[in-house]
């Protein structure tokens, strides 16, 4: 995954087991809520928790394959690219994320972490 930030720092946010299989949890950051998703294959993804359609909280949706269905109006978002699948058009921002063993780390711009407060 390409780093979208000039300076990026990996922030530890929790254990893989903190997220149910085919589930999601959200992380509160100064730049807004980030959704962290875990698939049946134990891959993790990070996306802004904000559906490109009407801003629905994607973390509250049903995770299937490498996609999530928004709980508000059933848009299906690709977790890899953040793009809406099927007939819908739109994209939500993705963030770098990695697994260090069982520890989940989120890639963030340190400046935003400080600026927020």
């Amino acid at each position, binding site marked *: 995954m390409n780093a979208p930030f000039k300076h990026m720092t990996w*922030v530890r*946010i*929790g254990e893989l087991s*903190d*997220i*149910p*299989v*085919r*589930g999601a*949890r*959200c*992380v*509160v*950051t*100064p730049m807004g*809520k980030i959704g*962290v998703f875990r698939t*049946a*294959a134990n891959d993790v993804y990070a996306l802004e928790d904000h559906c490109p359609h*009407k*801003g*629905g*909280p994607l973390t*509250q*949706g*049903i*995770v*299937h*394959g490498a996609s999530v*269905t928004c*709980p*508000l*109006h*059933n848009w*299906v978002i690709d977790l890899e690219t953040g793009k809406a699948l099927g007939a819908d*058009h739109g994209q939500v921002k993705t963030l770098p994320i990695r697994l260090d063993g069982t520890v989940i780390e989120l890639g*963030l711009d340190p400046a935003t*972490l*400080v600026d*927020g*407060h």
Partner: protein
Amino acid sequence: MSKEKLVVIGNGMAPGRMLEHLFEAAPGRYDVTIFNAEPRVNYDRIMLSPVLSGEKSFEDIIIHGDGWYIEHDVMLYKGHKITEIDREAKTVTSHTGEIADYDKLVIATGSSPFIIPVPGHDFQGVLTYRDLDDVDAMLLAAQSGARTVVIGGGLLGLEAAAGLKSRGMDVTVLHLMPSLMERQLDSAAGFLLQQELEGRGIQVITEASTKRILGDGKVEGVELEDGTIVPCELVVMAVGIRPNAAIAKEAGLDVGRGIIVDDLLRTSDPDIYALGECAEVGGTCYGLVAPLYEMSRVAAGHLAGEPTKTFKHSETPTKLKVTGINLYSVGDFAEGEGREEIVLRDAMGGIYKRLVIENNRIVGAVLYGDVADGGWFAQFVKDKTDISEMRETLIFGQNYQGGEPLDPMVAVAALPDDAEICGCNGVCKSDITGKIDKLGLTSLDDVRAHTKASASCGTCTGLVEQLMAITLGDAYNPSAVQPMCGCTDLGHSDVRRLIKAQSLKSIPAVMQALEWKTSCGCAKCRPALNYYLVCDWPDEYADDYQSRFINERAHANIQKDGTYSVVPRMWGGQTSSKELRAIADVVDKFEIPTVKVTGGQRIDMLGIKKEDLPAVWADLGKAGFVSGHAYAKGLRTVKTCVGTDWCRFGTQDSTGLGVRIEKFMWGSWTPAKVKMAVSGCPRNCAEATCKDVGVICVDSGYEIHFAGAAGLDIKGTEVLGTVKTEDEALEHIVAITQMYREQGHYLERIYKWAKRIGYDEVRAQIMDDAEKRKAYFDRFVFSQKFAQVDPWKERVEAEPQADMFAEYRPLADLTVREAAE
């Protein structure tokens, strides 16, 4: 750049179709607002006759359900009549004072039935035949067995007459001209039609000029100019329509009979379009659906800014939608200089065919009795085909060209690519075969969705199916079931059957055994499978919360802004000062912005942050509240009236029974939500006759109802039967619910399930078969052992490491961490 604003006045079939084309051609270009004077969504007006005759229900003829408007971001004002168009300010104003700006305006106000201004035309009991309200009014009159006079023997009048007759009413048709449907039929066919109708017991009086309607404020009969009096209680006027052009005229637009538009459907104001029955193009106002849909196509193309074709007049075939009467006419069939005709009559077979020929070309055709060749003749009219070669056998139809009768499939295969298959929607053969190939369509529903062929009046369905059979070959299976979703080819019923038959007890087991095409399903099939497994293996299956929709996972209702609402249970709609005080305290403590009384007799607290939910539930739990399952595909509410406790009319303890039912059944999961009610007397204050299951208490016992609806669809309940005691009532209600739990498709409400399997089947199993009833009851009781756990309490008491605890908290809060450093 902000979107252009498109305002549409009217929500009939023409503007509905225009928006479909527009959303396809230019998605997202316009912010669309619709003002509809009728208080409902867009439905198929030409199918009102089957609704009147009882062959279809309103839900069968909806074109765009509420979901469509949401999906396309359309603001729909139902029941708003536009009273003013201000072309200077570019705004429209509704009768309620709603004002909307427009960049482009489309007027589609349709037409109004013409009322003959004879004395008595304003009496109670005089109806027209135009919209669903008229149909409802006629059906109401039919219930009381009123005698009816239909004035007007045209298309609409005869459909109304046949519909009312099939409802058991005594019907007389009055027609001003010497023969019925004289605009579409010649006098011979008109006579055959009259004979057929009279054979069905409909009295027909032609050359009948109405003098006045008799009665004293209320219809008692109709008097004709010749002194004849026809006694009746209901008069249906179906003598014609008048375009609704008043609003356009007041706005200063050019108006003739209708709103005058050019062949791009533009009015005299370049930013205002008019289409549908209110528009006048080239001096003609149209009333049949095919040219109206053609207008929709042209207007949508122009609004989308695409180079587009212009509206051209074409001959539209006419069919009468009365079951058992086959009648077809197209073109011009008046006699005249230079015109010849070919006529075939078969008196015994009740067949009449007439072709009008001019310069070796068919200019008109009238078919009665056998209409199979209608489309074939219509094509010749349209193409102006020279028929001199086949003139000898022409009248026998397509099958007889070349001597040997052809296989009908071969005949369809031989149709040219531009042959029109669906007249209503202007769909030709290659449109259908092309889409089948390109999109891989295999079901009739898919073909309808993508091509619109056979999606309006449906008379070409057979032809479309033949085309599918030819195009798809063996791959076409007309009885194919609708698959659950894209992950499987199996339908809901098959999946439910196989789960039991093969003892499949987990979602992965189902997906493996039934060869799911995706690795872990989708948001459609997973909640369905989870429910089927919960229902079928209550003691063995471990509920998969990740396969539940968020409301059932979080045990609260998600709102548009991502907050939740909380509805505690109020048994039978009863509460107390202690409970109300606890709610008031919770509202204050958590600064809950909105508190609302629901339609199910309880209290909804809206705008609660997800993190606060467990604490809100903890406080509510201390006052004795449990979850109201207002979010569940499960038992919601049991609404009650006060019954014998207080009411001077009450016949039984309706509140007590309601509370008893709710306490017995809460917590159970069902295919879709279940709402119940118990009314203490037939005055029915708890509105039990539009519920999934309802009870009307009577002196002698309890009348049990089922399969009502009062949401997207409105439907009165069916009566299951009457029982004597409260215990019996409970047993029957539980049994019918369990039967539905075991058979219903996920998200299928009781009224749809019952209609699918048949009301009599439900009665036979629940009322007549005591053993079956008891077995259903016992299985429900067993499953309740595992289901009746208050989910709120579970979550309030959950350990911090449990998913039930973590669900409500963020995984990490980086703002807190930074602030702390």
